[in-house]
């Protein structure tokens, strides 16, 4: 026991106090999203009123298309970047050739660059490729910028597979691609979940690329749509909060169900933003 008994009560008091502080913003968000405009003005934010689903419907009306957009490009970019990360990770961890360390470093640095420093050329590139304001463009961008972190995740995971396993497969007659398909890939369910969950939340949560590359169009991502809600006078607080909740929903679900994999991704040393 690291602390004697009477202090335990203080411990729980502190924990609950902080939990309260952390939950407060969400609580006010939820209650507000279920109030009518009048109630929002007249009642205290943390007190719920007679719930109404109007704000949720209104928010959905505005955000329906952007949510769908986000779903599509997030899903595809996640799948692409994970698969590319997987074969890259396999090659970099199991095939020792000259320069594999260099190439790994090449990718790793790419994780940390501030996106501002590539934004202008990116804009030019996208418009030249006619991918500006398009979902395909967002898929391309998120896939490419997701390759470094996915490669890192998979390479670290595959590093744990004993080399003797690969050597055994080689003497058994399996070539590089067969080894990947029949030995490495079947053992990859864990890193795929970690990378998948990490990429899903990172891409879904992205704002900057959406803002710069797809702001005024049908490819509008949900993050930008939500930010737009804030600026307008037509959407009052309750609708804004409902919009935020709609947008938060997928990530919250992923977080609650697959949270421990997300944590593994965070611990790999990289962070969003």
């Amino acid at each position, binding site marked *: 026991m690291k602390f004697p008994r009477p202090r335990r009560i203080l411990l729980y008091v502190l924990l609950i106090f902080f939990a309260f502080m952390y939950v407060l913003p969400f609580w006010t968000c939820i209650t507000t999203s279920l109030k009518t405009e009048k109630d929002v003005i007249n009642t205290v934010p943390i007190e719920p009123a007679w719930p109404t689903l109007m704000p949720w419907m209104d928010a959905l009306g505005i955000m329906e298309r952007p949510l769908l957009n986000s779903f599509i490009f997030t899903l595809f970019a996640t799948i692409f970047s994970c698969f590319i990360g997987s074969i890259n990770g396999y090659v970099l961890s199991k095939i020792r050739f000259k320069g594999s360390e260099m190439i790994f470093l090449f990718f790793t640095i790419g994780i940390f660059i501030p996106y501002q420093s590539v934004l202008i050329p990116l804009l030019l590139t996208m418009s030249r490729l006619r991918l500006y304001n398009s979902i395909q463009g967002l898929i391309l961008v998120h896939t490419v910028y997701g390759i470094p972190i996915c490669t890192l995740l998979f390479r670290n995971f595959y590093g744990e597979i004993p080399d003797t396993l690969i050597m055994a497969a080689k*003497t058994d007659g399996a070539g590089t691609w*067969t080894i990947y398909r029949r030995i490495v890939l079947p053992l990859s369910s864990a890193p795929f979940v970690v990378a998948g969950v990490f990429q899903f939340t990172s891409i879904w949560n992205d704002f900057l690329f959406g803002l710069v590359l797809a702001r005024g169009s049908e490819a509008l991502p949900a993050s930008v749509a939500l930010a737009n809600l804030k600026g307008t006078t037509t959407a009052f607080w309750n609708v804004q909060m409902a919009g935020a909740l709609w947008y938060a929903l997928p990530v919250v679900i992923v977080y609650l169900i697959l949270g421990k994999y997300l944590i593994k991704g965070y611990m790999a040393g990289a962070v969003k933003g």
Partner: protein
Amino acid sequence: MVNIIIKNLTKKFGEVTAVKNLNLEIKEKEFFILLGPSGCGKSTVLLCIAGLLKPDEGEIWFGDKLVTSPKHDVYVTPQERKVAMVFQDYALYPHMTVFQNIAFPLEVRGVTKSEIEEKVKATAELLGIFNLLHRKPKQLSGGQRQRVALGRAIVREPKIFLMDEPLANLDAKLRVRMRVELKKLHQRLGTTTVYVTHDQVEAMSIGDRIAVLKDGILQQTGASKELYDSPRNTFVAGFIGSPAMNMLEGNLVKKNDTVMVDLGFSMFELPTWIGEKLQETKESRVILGFRPEHIEITKKWQKNGIEAKVDMLELIGRELYIHFTVGNKAVVGISRPTEDVKIGESVWIVPQEEKIYIFDEKTGEALI
């Protein structure tokens, strides 16, 4: 079946030379052992034979086919070499059943399903793991996994078996049992086998011939009896046989017709046959060697005896290990449990005449 010829094999890892200029010939159908302490390069040699490592220099031939030669840019991939390998950690595919593990090398080569089934079942039967075919590796014991690894190697009917300390992870009793089984298997299949181990007892018991390595350099090659009876240097002499050979330093002294070793605290007269062999040798620092199992103990001084004090006695079932102090060195002797010695007693150790060894102190080479 093929023989393996290794010429001038050298492999470096950065600054470290793991294998230096190794020359070996492994005969067809032979059960050949690579023996040595950890880090001596034996696994490196094995991996080069398998094609999993590329040497810096040298050649490797399987029969009359050149499979590795950096100089001529020849390098046959492991997949194409038709060797089978058993690893120390067994390297079983964790996500596959025993059946699938053993079937894998056949599948990869495109063997028909029915033939695969036949062969896998026959192999499993042979190794006594038939009832484990649908289990996964993590459900198996160490000994069972080892057999699966063997099965995966055998099922391909390869020309060469390579084994990298396959018994090292088994407990002592199982290891002894598996040793016998491996030997029986080899007698049955007759495949050329190269087997790596650091355990000299294992090597002596199952090998047809043994190559002893130290720091990447070949020390001696021969059948176990040869290595035991005629070690070529102090390393081989000390490595083979347990407890190790006793080695005492001294000066070689010649007086008239007798040759003696001046051990500092006493003089030890060498038998005439050694004296004859050392006729040309000058007086110099030498090492006198004799094995613990080749001694007699007397209570009186003898000119070919060494004075010793009994330190400790270990009664090991059918043998008595006696630990002596000679001069200031520790010496071990093995005798019958009925030997009449007491702790603290002073006795004379008399090595058997025919079993005395003399090595040059500087080079370690045997002088006789």
